[in-house]
């Protein structure tokens, strides 16, 4: 775990800080709406930069507390450093951690060589669905962002899923004036997306501004590579980068035209569309 460089200059533009505060205010409002309306709420935490910022925002919203469990769907193929980081932060911040795993699929030998979408569906989508069903969650908070990829751009802040976890993107509820879909028929659940308006740069700016501890896989440790997006070890490749601090990352992002998830194999072809329609995060 690393903290953003202590020696960063805090002369961020006032507009940047104002924009980050604005994003924070909206995310906090959404988190509080979720907490008010859902009795059985959980927040997905993948230990990546986005869901770690989300976790930080929950501590903002609830004044240092996190009044719901953090859920991790463990595919067993995660980069080992991520699991160490998960357990350490959970201990230090007093978090309630719930780990789910599709043991049946793993026992049957599921892995990415059987097809990436097949593997993601079994271990992540179905792993998540099993966890939701076992624990009876009616609201799941996720750190997806609209600028990540096309299907996520179409999301609502409060996005209903039917009994099978499916997403009907053709018929989404209207969402206006900070009024969200908080009522739902039995057997269904709502996905809540407080980070929808954040960009990748905003995430790093906020990490820097708030001094949020993050996993060091995002930094180059001398090999000239770093991860820009984190997933399962076999399907996530590091990018060429010499960014050794948050400032370096920000500098790099301000000049790149490479997509954030270019290192994520599941995005190829119609992968994400098929996955998300079916209930993927």
């Amino acid at each position, binding site marked *: 775990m690393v903290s953003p460089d202590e020696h960063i200059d805090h002369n961020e533009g006032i507009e940047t800080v104002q924009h980050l505060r*604005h994003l924070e205010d909206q995310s906090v409002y959404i988190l509080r709406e979720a907490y008010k309306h859902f009795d059985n709420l959980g927040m997905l935490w993948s230990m990546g930069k986005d869901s770690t910022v989300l976790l930080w925002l929950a501590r*903002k919203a609830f*004044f*240092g507390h996190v009044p719901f469990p953090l859920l991790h769907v463990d595919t067993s193929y995660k980069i080992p450093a991520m699991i160490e980081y998960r357990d350490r932060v959970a201990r230090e911040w007093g978090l309630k951690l719930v780990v789910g795993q599709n043991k049946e699929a793993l026992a049957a030998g599921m892995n990415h060589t059987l097809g990436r979408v097949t593997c993601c569906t079994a271990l992540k989508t179905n792993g998540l669905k099993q966890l939701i069903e076992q624990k009876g969650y009616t609201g799941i908070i996720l750190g997806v962002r609209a600028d990540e*990829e*096309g299907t996520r*751009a179409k999301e609502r802040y409060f996005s209903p899923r039917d009994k099978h976890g499916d997403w009907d993107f053709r018929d989404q509820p209207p969402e*206006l004036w900070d009024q969200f879909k908080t009522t739902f028929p039995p057997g269904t659940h709502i996905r809540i997306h407080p980070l929808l308006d954040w960009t990748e740069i905003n995430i790093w700016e906020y990490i820097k501004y708030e001094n949020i501890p993050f996993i060091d896989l995002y930094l180059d440790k001398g090999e000239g590579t770093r991860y820009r997006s984190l997933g399962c070890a076999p399907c996530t490749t590091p990018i060429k980068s010499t960014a050794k601090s948050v400032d370096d990352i920000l500098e790099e992002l301000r000049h790149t035209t490479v997509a954030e998830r270019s290192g994520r194999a599941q995005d190829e072809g119609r992968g994400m569309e098929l996955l998300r329609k079916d209930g993927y995060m």
Partner: protein
Amino acid sequence: MEEANSKPSDNLNIVIVGHVDHGKSTLLGRLYADTGSLPDGKLEKVQAICRQQGKEFEYAFLFDAFLEEQEQGITIDTARTFFGWKGRQYIIIDAPGHKEFLKNMISGAARAEGALLLIDAVEGVKEQSKKHGYLLSLLGVRQFAVVVNKMDLVGYRQDVFDAIEKEYREFLGQFKAVPQQIIPVSAKLGDNIANRSEQMPWYSGPTVLDALSAFRKEPGRSEQPLRLPVQDVYKFDARRIITGRVTAGRVKVGDSLVFSPSNKRATVKSIEAFNIDPPPTEGLAGQSVGVTLDEQIFVERGEVASHQDELPLVSTALRANVFWLGRKPLERGRRYQLRVATKEVDCEVATIHRIIDTMDLAQQQGSHVVNKNQVAELTIRTKTPVAFDLSASFESTGRFVLVDEYDIAGGGIVTELVHDDQEFLREEARQRDFAWVKGQVGVEDRAQQYGHRAAIVLVTGGRHTGKSFLARTIEARLVADGRHAYLLDGENLRRGLDADLSEGERGQATEMARRYGEVARLLVDTGLIVVSTTNPFGLAYIEAAQTIRTLVHPVPVIAIHMSKTPEEAPPNTDIVLSGPADFDAATRRILDELKRRGVLAQAIGAKPIFQYSI
């Protein structure tokens, strides 16, 4: 093509609206490409898909992320994308124009700070061009530019452009909307998008990107009077924190706040925050804040905090312009949930004044329903009083949504407060509560001591229906259970408090109910559960019950209606007992209702957990 990778220091939410096929996605694709905001490989990826499907590449495909949409050729939902230009980040909501998808257009436009409205130069002003223009105005989007697209297809002719401009300005003028700019463009060929067109020397106005740059951030609402709708009350640790988003004005440590409609008052002791050092001393419009108060008053979600000299309106009725998106038509008399800021309250449509045809803004009268995608002028009545504002004065507290079953099915802006018959009594209660002299013992102290909260159990109904007997039974049962309950009988007031009144004065049901209500208000302030009947008011029990409710608000009133044969109970009745009464069963139901409302704890001896305002 210009590079625009300088760090954005500002941001703006923009929506693109207009009739189907008038070129919104194309414009968006062009904006992205011309500002250098496309990630590497995105263009090639979409081009590859086009090749696979054997069709010509179009800029629109860049944003139609779903394959299905590309097959249909229409944008289904509001796709949010981002591009940077001259130091500002634009969050673009690409709202679709197809008639079926109005709900998505509204979701997009409701969060926009500015809009581009597209009109096809070949087709001219169409139905959705008008509807979207009207809705932008209704939704409160005041900054917008009209973009006349596909000018290449009309030979870049000025007379075509001028005719569209004239027609559309006239339409917008009917509801006093004025566009910032009207710009002739070809999104496909890039005329007047980033670069000035050489094909239209007759046009000297700004390009689309210049017009966007001229849009301003919404002026801060911090200078308005304070509005802080209560979102929730937390007690995770020693602090009791009232949270909410400041929708107007500013809240400061030391401010004296009034919560409406309960009229509770307290002073801000601190503004709480996580990881901010030193802690803030004020919260401004737009901020999600948490405050602690100097006194343990109970306030709940939905109340609006303000300063005493600038209170919000309070009523059970309001007039509004509403757009309807529900699958089922909006019906008069049907029950909906109204949500204004954080308040959620049952309501019904009392009157449908007129349907507004957005094609020509003609008004159709005498309809009993409002169909999907129609706009109407309504009077809405809520079950309990609501704090709100007129939308012309306050944006956030002046608008609302209507929920039908599980779904948000409509939205509207408040145009007028409708005076209800409780207005004078409510004002009396407000003045009384503001001046109320408190002892050292607070309401919460009494509740702790008694193990329950104050409430009124009020039995209504005609003569000889067993009201008095039921009231006595409840009082006895509550006291036997260790509760502090008292039977308030009207007869005792008549011979004491009202002894100086003439026979004629005693015949005035409203005044008698008022006196009765004020006595009840004193008794509940002592922490009692007051059990009573409307016997003293004879058949005027409906009005009397309403008067009592208004005067004791926000103390819970558990209303029980008794009749020998089935009949319509007064509004807001909780328990209806008709036919021969089983008093034991009735008592059990009433105790359950007291528990459900948080007056009694679920188990005797335990503390009630639900916090209502008192």
